[in-house]
C-alpha cells in the first residue's frame, strides 16, 4: 500500500506538472482525487490494515492528498497566468493609430495676447475696466487736452454720428482714463482694453476697427521713473527676462512728458533687419506722465497727485507674438487660422 501511494504520488505529480489546459487538469483531479479516483481507491483499502498500521498509513495518505492538492493549485495558477498572458498578447494594440481627441475650441489669438497682458497687470494691482465705444468727443478729445483743431478730430480721421461732432466712435481707449478719474477714488490703477476706430482703409497693417489697451496710474509722488520701471517689468513678463527696451520722446496731447517705448527687435537683436525696418527696435506703446491739464479738468490737483498712462495696440502685439504677417487674418476668422492658437 505504501508503494501504491508513492506510485500515485509520483505519477500524479508528473501528470499535473505537464497538464496543458484547465479541462485536462480537472480530468486529472477526478482521476486521482475524485470519488472514484485512484487515491480514494487506495484509501478504501485502509480497512484492511491493522490498527497499528493505520495511523502511519493514514498520515501518509493525507500527505499524498495534500501534495496532490497543492500540485493541482500550482498547476491551476500556472494555467491561469498562461491564459492571461495569451489573452493580453492577443489584445495588443497598434499604438501609432491616432488617439480619439475630443474637439475643443480655440481662443482668438488677439484675446490670447490680451489675456496675457491683463494677467500681468492684474497681478500688479490693476483693475480691468470696460467702457463705451460710442463715445462723447468731449471725453475722447477735450478732456484729454486735444483741443478744437487737433488733427485727429478731423472727419477724415474719426467716425462721427452727428453733424456737431459730438458723438463719435472712440479713436482711442484713452477716454477710459477720464471715466476712471471721474468715477473712482484715488489712488487709481486701471487698465482698459477695448475696440477703437479710425478712418483707415483695410490693408495688411491697417483696419478701421482695432483694439487698444489703456493703462493708468494716479497716486502721490508717481514719477516717470516709475512709468519706466513698471512698463519694463511688463515687457519682461511678456517677452522674457532678457527683453531690452528703450524710451523715445514723443507727443500726445494728454501726457507731458510723453514717450514711446520700443522693444529690441527679436529677430535681429538690434542689428537692423526687414522686421524692424532696419531700426533694430520695434515700437510697442505710447506713454507719458498725465498732463496737468487733464488732471485739473478731472478736479485732481496736479501739485498733489501725479500719474502716468500708456496705450498699446493689441493687434500689433498679437501679430508680433504669433508672427502673423497680415492684419486682415485677424478679422477674417478662417478656422484654419483660428485653430492654430
Amino acid at each position, binding site marked *: 500500500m505504501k508503494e501504491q501511494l508513492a506510485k500515485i504520488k509520483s505519477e500524479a505529480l508528473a501528470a499535473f506538472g505537464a497538464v496543458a489546459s484547465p479541462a485536462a487538469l480537472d480530468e486529472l483531479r477526478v482521476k486521482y482525487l475524485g470519488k472514484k479516483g485512484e487515491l480514494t481507491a487506495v484509501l478504501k483499502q485502509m480497512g484492511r490494515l491493522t490498527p497499528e498500521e493505520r495511523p502511519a498509513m493514514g498520515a501518509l495518505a493525507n500527505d499524498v492528498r495534500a501534495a496532490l492538492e497543492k500540485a493541482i493549485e500550482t498547476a491551476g495558477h500556472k494555467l491561469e497566468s498562461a491564459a492571461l498572458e495569451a489573452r493580453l498578447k492577443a489584445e495588443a494594440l497598434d499604438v501609432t493609430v491616432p488617439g480619439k481627441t475630443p474637439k475643443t475650441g480655440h481662443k482668438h489669438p488677439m484675446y490670447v495676447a490680451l489675456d496675457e497682458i491683463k494677467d500681468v497687470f492684474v497681478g500688479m494691482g490693476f483693475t480691468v475696466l*470696460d467702457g463705451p465705444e460710442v463715445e462723447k468727443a468731449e471725453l475722447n478729445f477735450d478732456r484729454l487736452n486735444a483741443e478744437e483743431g487737433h488733427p485727429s478730430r478731423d*472727419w477724415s480721421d474719426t467716425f462721427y454720428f452727428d453733424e456737431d461732432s459730438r458723438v463719435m466712435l472712440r479713436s482711442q481707449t484713452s477716454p477710459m482714463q477720464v471715466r476712471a478719474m471721474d468715477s473712482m477714488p484715488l489712488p487709481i490703477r486701471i487698465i482698459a482694453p477695448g475696440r477703437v476706430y479710425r478712418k483707415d482703409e483695410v490693408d495688411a497693417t491697417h483696419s478701421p476697427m482695432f483694439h487698444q489697451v489703456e493703462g493708468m496710474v494716479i497716486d502721490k509722488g508717481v514719477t516717470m521713473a516709475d512709468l519706466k520701471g513698471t512698463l519694463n517689468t511688463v515687457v519682461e513678463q511678456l517677452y522674457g527676462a532678457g527683453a531690452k527696451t528703450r524710451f523715445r520722446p514723443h507727443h500726445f496731447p494728454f501726457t*507731458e512728458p510723453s514717450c514711446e517705448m520700443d522693444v529690441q527687435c527679436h529677430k535681429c537683436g538690434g542689428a537692423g533687419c526687414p522686421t524692424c525696418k532696419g531700426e533694430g527696435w520695434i515700437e510697442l506703446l505710447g506713454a507719458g506722465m498725465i498732463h496737468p491739464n487733464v488732471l485739473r479738468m478731472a478736479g485732481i490737483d496736479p501739485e498733489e497727485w501725479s500719474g502716468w498712462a500708456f496705450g498699446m495696440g493689441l493687434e500689433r502685439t498679437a501679430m508680433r507674438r504669433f508672427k502673423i504677417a497680415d492684419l486682415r487674418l485677424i478679422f477674417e476668422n478662417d478656422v484654419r487660422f483660428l485653430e492654430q492658437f
Partner: protein
Amino acid sequence: MNLSRKWLNEFVEIDAGDRELAEAMTLSGSKVELTHDMGEEISNVVVGRILSMERHENSDHMWVCQLDVGQEEPVQIVTGAWNIHEGDLVPVALHKSTLPGGKKIEKGKLRGVLSNGMLCSLKELGLDERDFPYGVITAAALLNDYHPINPDKPSIPADIKPGDKVFGPVVCAGVANVSPAGDGKWECTLIRTEDDGPCATTLVTDCQNLHKWDLVAYNEKTNTICTLADLHAEQKEFPHCIPDGIFVLQEDCKPGDDIRAVTGLDDHVVEFEITPNRPDCLSVIGLAREAAATFNKPCRFHEPEVKGGGEGVLPELLDVETPDPELCPRYTARMVRNVKIGPSPKWMRERLRAMGVRPINNIVDITNYVMLEYGQPMHAFDYRYVKGGKIVVRRARDGEEITTLDGNVRKLTSNMLVIADDTRAVGLAGIMGGLNSEIVEDTVDVVFESANFDGTTIRKTALALGMRTEASAKFEKGLDILNTLPAVNRACELVELLGAGQVLDGVIDILNYVPQPTRLKVEPDKINALLGTDVAENVMYTILQKLGFETTKERGMVKVPSWRGDVKEMADLAEEVARFYGYNNIPTTLMRGQTTLGGYPEEQRLEQKLGAVCRSCGYDEIITYSFISPTWYDKIGWEPSHPGRKSFKILNPLGEDTSIMRTTALPSMLDILARNYNYRNKDVRLYELGRVYLPGGEDGLAVESKMLTLGAYGEGFDFYNLKGAVEAVMRDIRAEDVHFEGPDGEYLPCSAYHPGRVASVWAGSDCVGVLGQIHPNVAKNFGVDGELYCAELSFDKLMIARGAGAEYVPLPRFPSVTRDIAVVCDEAVTVGALEKAIRKGARGLLKEVALFDIYRGKGIDEGKKSVAFNLVLRADDRSLTSEEADEDVKSILEALEKDCGAKLR
C-alpha cells in the same frame, strides 16, 4: 518732413553717419523714419562728351558714338536715340555700372557693333522733366523715318525729295547743317528746290532730333519744322521721332564727372516724423536747431541782408488792409520789380527736389525754398493782377468763387479767409494762390506775402474744400508770428542772389497783436520729482539754453523762444530737460505708494467663463466688425419696419459696408460662417462675445449690450448639437429653471430662423435668447446652400441667470431603482410635455428622467410615436422596495395618459 543733409550742414556741421544721426535725433525727440541715399542705386555713371556720331551700318535708326568720358581713350557706345549731337554732354553708364531699379549695364554688341555702355535718359537716372525742365524733348517728324500705316497707300511717297510738296504750305526739305543755338535750341539750315533752283533757309528750332541728311517737313508759311502734331501723324508712322531720348546736360561739368554730383543725387535725405506740437521742426532751421542741441554743435544762422534800391516807393504801390485782424495776426509783404522769370539755379532745384518739392520757376521756387528753410509759408502774386495796388485780407463772401492755382473753382463761405484786391479774391489765405494772380512767364512785378493766419480757420477751410496743402498743414499747427519778417527778407535776398529782379526798399508789416513771450519759472525740484531723476540745476539751464530759452534777469525764470508755442508750464520744461538728459538715463523704479487690489469685475469673469465653456464644446472664438452694412438687415430677413433697424449711423463711414453700428451680431456670425463655408472648411463651430449698439443710451450714447453668439455647420450637425452647447452654457453658469420653448411659445418671431426649428431659451421667466437653424433663404442670402445653426444669447440676461455657487448635496446612501418605460402618443405631443407629465405624476421618489429613444414605424400607428424614458427612483431614508417603485411608476403612467394621451406600449 524731409531734410537734405547738405542743406542741414549749411547751418550745423554734423559729420555723423546716417544711422548715427537717425538714432541720436530719434532719441532726442525728432523721430527718423528712414534715410534715403538719393544716388544709392547709381554707380559708375559719368559725364561724357560726344566726339563723333556715325549712322550704324546695320540699322536704319542707330548711331555709333565716340565719347570722351575723361579717360585716355574715347569710348564707343551705340544708341538708338536721335536727340543727341556731336559736342553734347550726356550721362554715360559705363561697362559694369548700375542704374535705379537695379538695372545693370555691361558692354555688348548691338547688331554686330561693340557698345561699351549706355547713354542715359532722365528717366533712366530716376529723374524727370520737373527736375530738369530743359530735359523736355521736342521731336521733328523726319520724313526719312516715315512708315506708312497702309503700305499700299502711303501719305508721303517713299521717294520724296527736297522741294516736293507734302501738303499746303508744307514742303520737304533736307537738313544741310545743325548747330547749337544755346538754351537747348538748334540753328538749322534747310535745303529745298524751288522753281528757280536750290534754296537754303536757316531757322532756329526746338527739335532736337535733326541731323545732317535728314528730310523734314518744312512749313514755308510759318517758317517752322513740322512735328508729328503739325502733320496730324500717329507715332507709329514715325516710330523713331519720339519725345524721349538722352538727357543732354546743360550743367557746369566736364567729361568723367560723377553723374550723381552733377545731378545733385549725391545728397542723403532724412525723413522725419514730426509731431503736431512741433511745427517749428517742419523747417530746415528748426531741425538744425534740434540737431545742434543733440550733437552739442554750434548753429550758424544768418540774418538775411537785402540790398533793395528797386525803383518806386512801396507804400505808394501797395496798400494792405486786414479787416479781420483776429484771423490774420500778422501780414508782411515786400515787392520785387523787373522780374525775370526763368528756371532757378541748379543748387536750388536740387535742394527742392531733395525735400520732395517740384521746381517750377525762380520766383515760385524761392517761395518754396523759404518755406522749407524757415517753415514760413510764402506766396508770390503777380502785381499787375492786384487791382488797385491793394491787398485786403478779408473773409470771403458767401458764395464767392475763386479759381485756385490747381485750376479748380472753389466756392467759398464767410468762414474762409481770402487775399483780395480791390475787386476780387486773388488767393485763398494760407492754402493756395489764385490762378488770376499766378506768376507766369511774363510776370514783371511781384509781391511776396509772408503772413500769419489763424490756424483753426485755415484748417477748417482746407478741410471744407478738401485741399490740404503744405502751407495749410503748417498754418493749422500754429506758426511763430515772429518768423514772417525774416522769411520775407530771405526771399528778397534770394531774388537778389539769383538776379531775378530788383527788390524795393521797405517792408509792409501789419502786426495786429503783439505776442508776449512766455516766461516760466524753472523749478528743478519739481522737475526732478516728476521725472524721478536727480538732474543738477545747471544741467537743466544748459539744456534749455541750447534750445533757445533765454535766462532772464529775474532768477529762476526763462523766456520761452517764440517758435516754441508748445511750452507752457513746468511739465513742458520737464520734457525738454528729459529729452536732452536722455529718456534712457532716467532710472527705472517700481511703483510705490498704497497697494491696490487688482482684479476683474464680475462681468469680465463671466465673459471668461462663457468663453471657456464654448471652447470646451468645440467652438472657436471669432472677432467681427462692430459696424455693418444696412443691407445685412435685409439679408437676415428683417422687415423694413423691424425695430432693430434703428441703428447708430456713421455720418462719414469708410463705405456703405461699414456704415452702421450693428444692433444684432447675427449677420456678422453668418458672414463668417459663409466665409468658412466658401473656404470649404468642414465642421465649423464659432462663438463671438461681442457688442451690439442700441439707440437710447445716456447722453446720446448707445446702449452697448454684449451678445454671446454661437454659429455652426457641418456634417451631422443638427439642432440638438447646438441646443446641447446652449444647455452646456446654461449649466456652466448654474442657471436655474432653464427651459426651451418652440415657435408656439411665448417668443418674439425671428425671421432669420427656420420657423419649425427655432426655440427661445429661458431661465425662469427671463428669455435669455434664441437658437435654431437659420432660415434657408437667409443662408442663401449669405451664399450658403447648406444648413447653418446659430444661437444668440444676451450677456446681460446670462449675468442675471447666473445661479448661486455650488453647494454639496450628500451622496445617496440607499440604492436607487431604475425603470424603463415606453409610451405611445400623438406625434404632436412634445417630449417636453411628456417629461412634465412624468414629473407631475411622480410621488416624490423620482430623481431623474432621461429620454432614450423615440421610435416611429413598424408596430406604431401612423401619426403616433413611441417615446422611451429611463426613470431613476430613490428614497433618501431607506432602500426602496420594488412595490414602492411600481406604485410611483403607475402614478406616472396615469399622469402621462391623462395629460398627454400617452399609453404604455
